[in-house]
């Protein structure tokens, strides 16, 4: 049976990651974003009077003011407070082309109770970490001191 699911391949923080492409993920190109720092966010998306913050991350995943981002990937858009990740590059990959294996990162979880990388795609050229959407959204919200898990 054909697997119709897709993954987003995201390039940011000097690394490539995968993320399941769920319906509540919204992708906005840079030209639709307001490049204005608000707190630790590097850009905002203004929608229906609300502003959704988006963060650029460095290699250590700390927020950085600017990067070569081309798109914002907003997570949890069906929740009260969507939050965005700024990515340098993005591709859509069929799940059937990937071999995703679960694994448990060692050490304390970066956000309370949640690891950010529940699996990895194993390929001939190495590993690509898979992002946990809820965990990444929690991490990004925590950058502003908001631990809400929306």
């Amino acid at each position: 049976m054909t697997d119709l699911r897709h993954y987003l391949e995201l390039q940011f923080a000097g690394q490539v990651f995968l993320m399941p492409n769920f319906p509540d993920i919204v992708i906005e190109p840079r030209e639709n974003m307001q490049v204005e720092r608000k707190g630790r966010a590097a850009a905002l998306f203004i929608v229906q009077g609300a502003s959704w913050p988006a963060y650029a991350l460095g290699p250590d995943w700390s927020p950085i003011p600017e990067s070569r981002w081309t798109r914002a990937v907003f997570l949890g858009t069906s929740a009260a407070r969507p939050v965005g990740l700024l990515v340098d590059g993005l591709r859509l990959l069929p799940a059937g082309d990937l071999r995703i294996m679960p694994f448990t990162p060692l050490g304390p979880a970066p956000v309370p109770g949640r690891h950010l990388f529940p699996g990895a795609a194993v390929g001939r050229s190495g590993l690509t970490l898979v992002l946990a959407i809820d965990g990444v959204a929690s991490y990004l919200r925590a950058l502003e001191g908001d631990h809400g898990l929306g």
Partner: protein
Amino acid sequence: MALASNRVHALLLPVCDRYLLVPSALVAEVGVVETLTSLPLSPPWVLGVMSWRSQPIVVCDLGRFWGPPATLGPKSRVAVFYPLPGRAPTEFFAILTNAEPQSRTIETPSVLLTDEDAVHPYLAVSLDIDGKRAGIPDLAGLKELFYDPVAAKAP
């Protein structure tokens, strides 16, 4: 003081300035260090993730608890450990070693407990094995170190 034990087939893993003595039955394989993928937001003792038998496993530098960080070199190896008791059958992990581990059959009274006063993190006991400073890893302590009690519940 002699360590009361039976004959045990063991591996001496060169880690930092000492050896880790582990029963061979705990180690699934010893191999070269494959390409490591960085695992962001991990503690410094996590070196990264590598592919082993087509599955991702975390590679640890436990030597950091007893000395300076490890340097990856041509002699570096990884000892891939079976999952710790109570963990999922896929939760293998790897410990970086300075060189190829040595195989030993450990017999009393060749193993002596040392009188070291220092308490070494994640070592259950310190030993002198034929003049080599060694330690037996504290597996319960490692399990606490490795697995976040909430985020990494065993299935």
